[in-house]
């Protein structure tokens, strides 16, 4: 079963990240590298990407003749996806354990466990044999 682990943040979180100390950034990067390696070594890794910051994010709708209308105004309270990991595991508990590990990524001031991780199941193309 595949699960997506999403890290979300408000615009202010992204701005705060830009002011982290060198030491905190290094601790975070080191942690993320080790986390990624562990996912690969344990044979559960499917995909992972980090996303560009929300400053440049645009909402796009189709206008006349399908031309894009872009909109870039966001309320401060909105949460943005910062990055995601997709893992292939045997059950939800395994996905939660990986998410809890990810949540221990050191943040500003090297405080651990403050980052919530949203876990959602990825729909499969399967149907159920029902036995």
């Amino acid at each position, binding site marked *: *079963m595949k699960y997506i682990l999403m890290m979300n943040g408000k615009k202010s979180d992204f701005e705060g990240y830009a002011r982290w100390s060198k030491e905190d950034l290094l601790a975070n990067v080191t942690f993320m590298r080790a986390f990624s390696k562990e996912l690969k070594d344990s*044979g559960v*890794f499917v995909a992972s990407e980090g996303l560009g910051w929300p400053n440049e994010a645009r909402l796009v709708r189709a206008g006349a003749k399908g031309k894009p209308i872009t909109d870039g105004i966001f309320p401060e309270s909105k949460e943005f996806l910062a990055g995601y990991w997709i893992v*292939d595991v*045997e059950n939800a508990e395994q996905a939660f354990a990986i998410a809890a590990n990810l949540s221990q990524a050191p943040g500003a001031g090297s405080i651990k466990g403050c980052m919530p991780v949203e876990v959602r*199941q990825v*729909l499969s*193309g*399967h*149907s159920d044999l029902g036995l």
Partner: protein
Amino acid sequence: MDGQTSDTPIELLLRELTPQVLGVVARRFRDFPSAEDAVQEALLAAFRQWPKEGIPESPRGWLIKVASRRMTDIVRSEMARREREAAIAEEEPVVEPVEEVEAEMDPEDTLILLFMCCHPALSTSSAIALTLRAVGGLTTAEIANAFLVPEATMAQRISRAKQCIRVSGVPFRAPTQQERGERLPAVLHVLYLIFSEGYASSIGSQLQRVDLAREAIRLTRSARVLLQEDTEVAGLLALMLLTDARKAARTGRDGELIPLDKQDRSLWDRIEISEGTTLLTVALSKGAVGFYQLQAAIAAVHDEAAQAQDTDWPQILALYELLQRVQPSPLVTLNHAIAVAMVQGPARGLERLKALDHDERLRGYYRLDAVRAHFFEMIGDFDKAIQHYRAAAARTTSLPELNYLITQAARLSEFRKEQSERPANTKW
């Protein structure tokens, strides 16, 4: 979607030969994990060379020779490494000439490998991956592709599975009669999971993917040859054939799911149905009826109905009652309730479902709501049916099921709307 796959005769030959070659090499070098790597390399070499140079006179001998050469390299470099590390002197590895390979063949090799790859110490996903590679002869890339994960991830899963076998010290020998009895259920479960992965995911996007259902049938066939006396192996093979027979009818032109009662039965594969039925009849006549035989028997009753309304539901009900005694589970109770509804009416079916309301094992499982929705629809309580179709849609983890369930809810809502908009004087 015409069931055609791109497998070449060379690929099919290599898959057949894999367990035979691996058996010889693993026994000769007494090292299954490394032998498995060496054989995989020999297979890849054959993939590259045979299409150009032709299939060698003895393809099996060729593969054993190449794999053994590779094994010798592995053993030598391992010895060199140990010497560098100044470890304790090891005894010389056995590197015998590779002639007379036929004499080393043991017909039980496939069975030994199957029991090893489905060892209960392995996680299910590892057992599936290793079985497909070591017994099925598929490449890591093919297996990764079938499960939609990166090749590196699948390689890692296989290597961890072999590490687990190495650590647990499982010897490379035929399982004893007692071990067979104890571990056969795990082997059959792995084969069943491979089948269901292939059958259940054969909805759209099947292009360029190995047909896992067909591979599972092939592996179960070879297991059956070696375990003639076991009726559950025959039962599982029959279940696979009787289910696979409906493959062409179960999805529509746009890949949408078509439930059993709406399928075009002329598309069902008569040859598979007849083979499955024959296998099952023989197995059932031998006594000791098990889980797979009963599931196969239920599939056979569905398959022999020319039209959905001809289905012998009283017989299916009797089979589910037997199944509840042989191997009770909440899923069996759920399916039993469907048979009850078909024989005694939906109200009785709904009563049966109440027993499952507080069952932790079904918590969050969409099918309880889906079945309830069907029963309410049969009764004519469309509001409740819509509500349960939607609840099921919110719980399913499958995209085709999700589409099916919301389509059912939409169909009933539109019907309700038409009913309420119809002018009063046209009502009867």
